[in-house]
């Protein structure tokens, strides 16, 4: 493994899929594949990011995202530290900027940020010198989720070019849907958002996706991507749908609705019996666990990618292989 030089200035971030090119996406997926085969083959830990520090700054509860970023950093031999909003100085009213500046004083190489507000990762990127990876900012973006979804999809289908993904559910409030639609466009795949009219954002077609309110339109898709339906969308004054019961009847993914040959994906956590029937969730068609596995290697690849400039990366990837 080549000695990695200090990160080139300015730091490279992963804030939004919008900032990526097709080459970027393919490079990260390729790195992830090589990381996977290396990890499978011999030792689980690679020395690649030895001496680097990755800070996870999480203002929202998370199981798989936080766990996979922690593990990804450890597998690459980086020092890692996770800060959760609860039990930290955030509880004492410290602003995101101050918390980020405080952590920046330890000179981390990467700060991974999850926050309930749109623009949080951008703010951290503006006020620190570290590379910032957006692990979810409100309803805006969750780029590593989109990358791991592409990875899992390609693993299951053997290709991405020309793949049609039906994304079913609450796209309006979903950073996962936004990131995925953009990522699919980048790699030559396409998507249809299916859901009740009140939960499909107006003018979202500008991203390149089709939209539909008819669940039968998922029949032509290669992938059925199910979004989590959130209870709080029925709060008084925010009633986007009349009831979960009606939502499930119209848009729930049941075995009858899944076509032979289709695969089913879900970013988790699932509401079994609401947006997805347990029989589908546990079926052979479901890629949910593959997505979790993909999360680890893709996040390893992302941490690696933001800390290296392309020429170094190509060399290092060759060595990993």
């Amino acid at each position, binding site marked *: 493994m080549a000695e990695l030089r200090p990160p080139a200035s300015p730091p490279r971030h992963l804030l939004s899929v*919008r900032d990526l090119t097709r080459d970027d996406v393919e490079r990260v997926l390729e790195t992830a594949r090589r990381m996977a085969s290396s990890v499978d083959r011999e030792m689980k830990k690679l020395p690649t990011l030895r001496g680097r520090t990755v800070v996870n700054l999480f203002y929202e509860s998370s199981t798989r995202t936080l766990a996979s970023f922690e593990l990804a950093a450890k597998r690459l031999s980086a020092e890692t530290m996770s800060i959760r909003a609860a039990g930290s100085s955030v509880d004492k009213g410290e602003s995101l900027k101050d918390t980020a500046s405080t952590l920046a004083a330890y000179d981390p190489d990467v700060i991974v940020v999850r926050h309930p507000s749109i*623009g*949080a990762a*951008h703010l951290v990127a503006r006020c620190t010198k570290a590379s910032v990876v957006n692990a979810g900012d409100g309803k805006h973006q969750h780029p590593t989720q989109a990358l791991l979804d592409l990875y899992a999809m390609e693993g299951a289908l053997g290709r991405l070019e020309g793949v049609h993904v039906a994304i079913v559910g609450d796209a309006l*409030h979903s950073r996962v849907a*936004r990131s995925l639609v953009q990522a699919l466009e980048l790699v030559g795949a396409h998507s249809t958002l299916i859901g009740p009219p009140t939960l499909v954002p107006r003018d*979202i077609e*500008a991203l390149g996706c089709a939209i539909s309110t008819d669940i039968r339109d998922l029949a032509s898709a290669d992938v059925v991507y199910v979004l989590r339906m959130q209870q709080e969308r029925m709060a008084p*004054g925010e009633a986007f749908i009349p009831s979960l019961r009606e939502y499930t009847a119209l848009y729930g993914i049941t075995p009858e609705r899944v076509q032979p040959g289709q695969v089913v994906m879900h970013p988790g956590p699932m509401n079994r019996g609401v947006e997805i029937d347990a029989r589908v969730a546990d079926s052979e068609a479901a890629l949910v666990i593959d997505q979790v596995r993909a999360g680890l290697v893709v996040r390893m690849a992302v941490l690696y990618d933001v800390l290296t400039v392309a020429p170094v990366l190509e060399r290092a990837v060759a060595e990993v292989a």
Partner: protein
Amino acid sequence: MVSPLMLFSRNGRSDSLTLEGRVLAPAQGIDECLRITVTDGVISGIEPAPASGLVIAPAFVDPHVHLRTPGREDEETVRSGSEAAAAGGYCAILAMPNTEPVVDSAAVLGALIERARSDAVVPTGFMAAISKDQSGEELSEMAELASAGAAAFTDDGRPVESAGLMRRALQYSALAGRPLALHCEEPTLSRGGHAHEGHVSAEIGLGPYPSTAESLMVGRDLALAAAEERPLHLMHLSARESVDALRRARDAGVTATAEVTPHHLCLTDEAVRSLDPNFKMNPPLRSEDDRRTLIDALRDGTITVIATDHAPHARHEKEVPFEDAPFGVIGLETAFAALHTLLVLPGELTLEVLLERMSAGPARVFGIPEPVVEVGARANLVALDLEAEWEVTEDGFRSLSANSWLLGTTLSGRVVRTIADGREVFVA
């Protein structure tokens, strides 16, 4: 009808001076090179002069400024806000009443007027609230407030939600003899909204604030104004649908005026992609189609007022994720240069229309004496160097706040001298 006691500033000397340049007073049809002599604050002589580099125009009037006093003097004070106005070429400003406490009583208003008499560098007027505490439930004591010096009435910052109260405000304002200025927003449509509903908000996931949230309320208020046969003024219009409604109402004989801000004239919601909180305003930046409509309306006189909606915010309040940031940007010190650079130079608006809509237009709506170039008139003049280029920087403001959408931008055109009510209040 309007009492002269509507604008207040600190007492001081009146100045004697001369100004020379291309005098451009579109409302009076003047465009020639002149030397203007001011003696003891009054224009005493106007004579031909050789061509020179400066443009001399009637000074500007901004009827929509947040001075954050009382309550948030860390963000702006009467002194700092009026100094910012002087630096922006203004000879009169009107401050909004959404302070802490709200300007809804003669006592609060009286204290502000006293403050202006000791601190205001340029003549400053104060709008009072339409409803007590701006809570939209009961009318404020408009007649008393008007005789105490209120310049106009508004609940700016929030709409008058109740149509019934709006109707009574229109009726009752006849006793006050001062205009009603309305912030039009249907709250059940704008709730949770952080950006214009369109492809940018869809892509970013920001809560949508649709054009109808504004235009529905504009339509309602114009219908009430028509039925009550009372005038009204619409603040900070942003949407094509609102302009359409205004045109129809004016064609039907309603006495309605409107204002537009520099940021709605220069920017679209594309700017929001940066997620920089200095592009977060209420109403939000809208589409290119909306922006074009606003410029057309300004050109054809449907909209006669450019107002900054100067809204200072403390630095720490804007250094947060976009979604958590308060609405509003400052504008007094950059309005002319921004509009000159971004609209006049590219040919979207003439300098004449810009100058008229920043001076005579707003003065007329609010009953402020129009700044004129005329022997015997109080001197209210601004000298502009159209060639000067300057960069907007965080430490370059007289305002106590720096939440400008223009930080880092180089502008062409600079205010070099401001004469307000016969006094030289700014020299670059």
